[in-house]
């Protein structure tokens, strides 16, 4: 990696200030950034670690909303949302391996917005909110395509707010090499609506499968999507699966998530 300065601020304000320097880069768990640096594919002047900021920590239920601090590791999410938000706990427990889960953070993952990341599916299905140091951003506005979000330069995700569903589940069909989702589907059932968030599949990144959401709102059962069809147009196609295969898997994984929702 190229040489860089390293700063570990103790407060959000200090972090915001540190990030004002040109080419400064926020560092969450480093699960994407560090390998990128090692390959010399990025050349930040300064890394600003968010690990020492108390405001980014903590996972708590606030009424019918779950608030997850942006600096929460996947391991913490998996442990601490068990019994509160089954689908999210399950999702977090299957990201990477224990080493990844003990370093990687939800804020880092959402800020990076890898098209095959898991969390975007949960945020989209729940129509959750990304809270930053300056504002709140609704899921549908937040995601803007592959590796692209509504975040401004230097803006830091402080927490993520998920409306708690009655039932939820996440089904990940793994890409054989990376074990990221080739297709991942998160289903969240509320009293009056159902959310279906799909990751890994589309060329535009995470999306809500709205036809399925409507069908499932009327009948929360796997058969409800039997007559729906997902178009292969706009789906990613690579070594590990064609667009048609991914489109097919969206439906299969949706049905499985509905069947397994708890």
């Amino acid at each position: 990696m190229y040489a860089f300065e390293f700063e570990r601020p103790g407060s959000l304000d200090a972090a915001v200030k540190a990030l004002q320097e040109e080419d400064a880069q926020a560092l969450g768990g480093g699960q994407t950034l560090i390998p990128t640096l090692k390959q010399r594919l990025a050349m930040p002047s300064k890394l600003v670690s968010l690990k020492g900021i108390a405001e980014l920590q903590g996972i708590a239920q606030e009424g019918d909303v779950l608030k997850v601090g942006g600096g929460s590791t996947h391991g913490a999410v998996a442990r601490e949302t068990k019994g509160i938000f089954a689908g999210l706990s399950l999702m977090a427990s299957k990201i990477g391996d224990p080493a990844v889960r003990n370093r990687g953070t939800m804020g880092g993952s959402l800020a990076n917005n890898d098209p095959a990341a898991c969390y975007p599916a949960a945020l989209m299905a729940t129509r959750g909110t990304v809270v930053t140091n300056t504002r709140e951003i609704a899921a549908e506005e937040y995601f803007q395509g592959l590796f692209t979000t509504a975040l401004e330069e230097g803006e830091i995700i402080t927490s993520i707010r998920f409306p708690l569903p009655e039932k939820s589940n996440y089904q990940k069909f793994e890409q054989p090499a990376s074990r990221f989702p080739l297709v991942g589907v998160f289903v969240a059932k509320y009293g009056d609506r159902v959310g279906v968030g799909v990751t890994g599949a589309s060329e535009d990144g995470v999306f809500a499968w709205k036809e399925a959401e409507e069908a499932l709102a009327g009948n929360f059962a796997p058969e409800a999507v039997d007559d729906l069809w997902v178009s292969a147009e706009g789906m990613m196609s690579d070594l590990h699966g064609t667009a048609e295969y991914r489109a097919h898997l969206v439906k299969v994984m949706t049905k499985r998530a509905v069947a397994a929702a708890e």
Partner: protein
Amino acid sequence: MPKDHGIGASTKRREDVRFLTGDGHYTDDINLHGQAYVHFLRSDVAHGRLVSVETEEAAKMPGVLRIFTGKDFEAVGSIPCGWLITSRDGQPMQEPPHPVLAQGKVRHVGDPIAAVVAETYEQARDAAEAIMVEIEDLPAVIDMKQALAEGATKVHDDLKDNLCYDWGFVEENREAVDKAIKEAHHVTTLELRNQRLVANPMEPRVAVGDYARHNDESTLYTTSQNPHVIRLLMGAFVLGIPEHKLRVAAPDVGGGFGSKIFHYAEEAFCTFAAKQLRRPVKWTSSRAEAFISDAQGRDHVTKIELALDKDNNFTALRTETYANMGAYLSTFSTSVPTWLHGTLMAGNYKTPLIYVNVKAVFTNTVPVDAYRGAGRPEATYQLERVIDKAARELGVDPLALRRQNFVTEFPYATPVAVEYDTGDYNATLDKLEEIADLKGFEARRKESEAKGKLRGLGVNCYIEACGIAPSNLVGQLGARAGLYESATVRVNATGGLVVMTGSHSHGQGHETTFPQVIADMIGIDANMVEIEHGDTANTPMGMGTYGSRSIAVGGSAMVRAAEKVIAKAKKIAAHMMEASEGDIELKDGQFTVAGTDKSLAWGDVTLAAYVPHNYPLEELEPGLEETAFYDPSNFTYPAGAYACEVEVDPETGKVTVERFAAADDFGNVINPMIVEGQVHGGIAQGVGQALLESCVYDETGQLLTGTYMDYAMPRAGDLPSYVVDHSCRTPCTHNPLGVKGCGEAGAIASPPTVVNAVIDALQSGGHKVDHIDMPVSPARVWQAMQ
């Protein structure tokens, strides 16, 4: 003799203590005083003409000692190929030069263009980025059949085309085979690909070159499976350093799987640069670099035809294979698709007529060479897949079809030039039926169906030729080396022994198994025996470890040397006990005189050898140390039968391996636990090839699977608990231990087992699928079902 020490004991691996506690001593742990670091600037295009390489500015950067380019190596030799293949027309193969650093052209992504030596690794890397390289792009030659088409771009301008050789075996059989196939009652044809793999040993390659001015001696520390071979190839062919001025040492090596057999450019570079700069020079490969610089494996495209008579007897077999050599000829690359592949095409069967044609092709890809099994997995895969297809076409039981055609009488001379000394294929198949509970399969299939899954059973038989190899035979076949092995057994005055073996352990457990043999021969505790290997400075000329040869060839050399030691010790004992040499017996570490109560301990006699006061000095030299070179008279032929049960998820195409059983005949077994471990590892690699691994280039020669994000390695969770058995034993008839190689069997036998199972599962679900190329990924299975 404590039973936890000798032959047949599952002694725990003594080397694991250091490996598991972080005390292993690998090449990257070697750091010499004044050491500099090299970074290789590698081509990022697959094929191009080097117009210019400007290093002037880069050379001025901080810490840079020198930047080398191809020009610096114009007077240096070419990296040699170790095996000459002769084409069907009698012409020798086309053999292009392989420079240490690219000269004139770059021929694959990863081809080294320049090497920056600097005080630190980061400085070397910084300076490499400042080198200005101008390359005139040329069309990349990737597909083998297109490479052979009229007018195709040539990978090597000085060759007449991209065909390395066109090999026919056995050429005299060609017409008879054609005729037999034409007139056959039934012919089953299959076209398949044995995909390219990346070896991926846990430890990437490392080289440290050093030079001592005081005695003009060069030393190379390297991650090698065979340091003497590297000394010979690099010293004699590349750098022109005589062997007495060159030492090559390979300390602990973290896995090789074949990829560390070969002599690589980086080794020659570090040795050369150390002498030029009078500084030790170190290179440590990154994982990304390994993907574009370690020789890769397999990459065969084959059409196979099996002819049967009306009674389902195999009558003839014909294959046509295109074998990818990559851009240059790696050390043993040319032998893999020919002698290590063609000679195995008979498999376990008495097919009377066989003809194998192999066209080896140059492409703008990383060189391809031996990878665990090397040629034998390719042979087994074709043969066992086509037999499975034939059974389906004929509506007969695939096991019965195999049994009917088994070789049952030994020795058996195949029509492809090898003679199986011993074996019992029905015995291993019987054993497999038992340990795999094949009777219970239909019930398990129903259970799977009840869960909505398709269950399939795949069975496979294999034979392999290993324990490489009789030198006079391989010499006739084009090998430019002998394939004996050596050992020196040094007995110390107080009775302990050191065995210096030419074999090299990089995971095989020699430090544990070799002492078990010596312990058994003398009747002492195995802990009295130490194994030294991996350094040309203190081991006799040896050929190293590959081709499942260590115990069969290296172990035999050790036995011969130990026999000499024991014979001499008996002479000393006879003198000391005033008895006739012929009456001396050695048992449990005691020399006795037959028919008397006289005895001497092992240590009394070894002490006398070095303190020769009461000693027959007029007839016998003092000391107790003997060397032996063992050249095998034949290969060893392990064989066996494997079974795999898979479940296929019909909605996603995902295949899961539910059960896996292996019944192997390895002859006599020294350490059953280590043998099991070798089989386990081999199966993991075989299942990895069948379901996951694949090295893919795009049409421009860019590697699409250059990291673990896209190159799928098998993980523990992908594999079931195996049932492994090696109780069927037909000892090898021609080596002193009666042993056969076991290191490659799992990797050879498991890919067809898994694919046969997947096809069976799909057929059971009504899908008329005859074949899916490996890796049998979810996407491919789903596609095949559509």
